[in-house]
């Protein structure tokens, strides 16, 4: 007999369809009898929906980065911390040819 604790512990498997058929049937039976677990399942699913509702809207551009941060990043590159950064290009001295 499935307990409320077992249902709560393995609810994600129930929702994701990862429970073996016999265990899933037991969960279904428990949910039919237990109003508390039905409520728990509903609020758990609502929690999942609310989280997904926090996804940023792709159409709304995020606020621009602070200019200070942009400059700090570009300064890091100019300082030659990256192999292919502009500052890492070999300096061509006088008389050098392409």
């Amino acid at each position, binding site marked *: 007999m499935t307990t409320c604790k077992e249902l709560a512990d393995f609810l994600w498997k129930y929702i994701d369809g990862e429970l073996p058929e016999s265990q899933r049937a037991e969960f279904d039976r428990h949910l039919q009898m237990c109003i508390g677990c039905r409520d728990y399942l509903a609020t758990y699913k609502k929690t999942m929906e609310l989280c997904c509702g926090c996804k940023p809207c792709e159409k709304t551009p995020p606020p621009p980065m602070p200019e200070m941060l*942009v400059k700090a*990043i570009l300064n890091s590159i100019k300082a030659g911390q990256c192999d292919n950064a502009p500052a890492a290009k070999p300096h061509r001295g006088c008389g050098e040819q392409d």
Partner: protein
Amino acid sequence: MCALCLCTHGVATTLRPMPDADESIKRIVPQTAPVVVPVSAAAPIVADAVEMALVEKLKAGDAAAYERLVRDYGPRMLMVARRLLRGDAEAEEAVQEAFISAFKAMGRFEGTAKLSTWLHRITVNAALMRLRKAGRLRENSIDAMLPAFADDGHPARARAGANSVTAASDGAETREVVMAQINQLPDAYRAVIIMRDIDGLSTEQTAELLETTEAAVKVRLHRARQALRELLEPLMKEGRL
């Protein structure tokens, strides 16, 4: 080079100070370069032509292209870092680290992921590195937030009666309320909810970034949702969500 990444782990990175930045955040030297991008020799090119043109300029060391990358992609990276970290200063440092890692790995970017996706994962990894180094990704502090049960498996305290759960609201106010509750979770659990439910990473990608198994991610996500449900339930019952 890491099997899952384009990065060379163990390379120290020194961040440039932000102009007028607080002294405490002027120099940060992470132990590893945070770059994570799955690579596959047979993977198709998914980056579009505009992105690849930009990448070619970056590989050639075009300074204007670097600035464009920072200005175009930086804001979204900062948003991602802000979600995972607590505090703007820490998020900005993570973005700076992420860009340095990205620039170092740019020569090996082959377009098998969209540039934005690639930078997103690098940013998540940079933020996780900070949490990990601070010991904030340990899974040991959520039990008090989970539902309690008696030895016989029944709830330890009476549950509220059935309520009417409405369809999820998508308003900005609702998002703000939910994010505030997510931010009450311990970092290890907050991170997994953000990565899976909000950033939309797969279980596999989340496991790679968290350096754990897919099964562990599923269990951690479940516990995070259980704890979050406990926090949100009163608001649901009040009809605020």
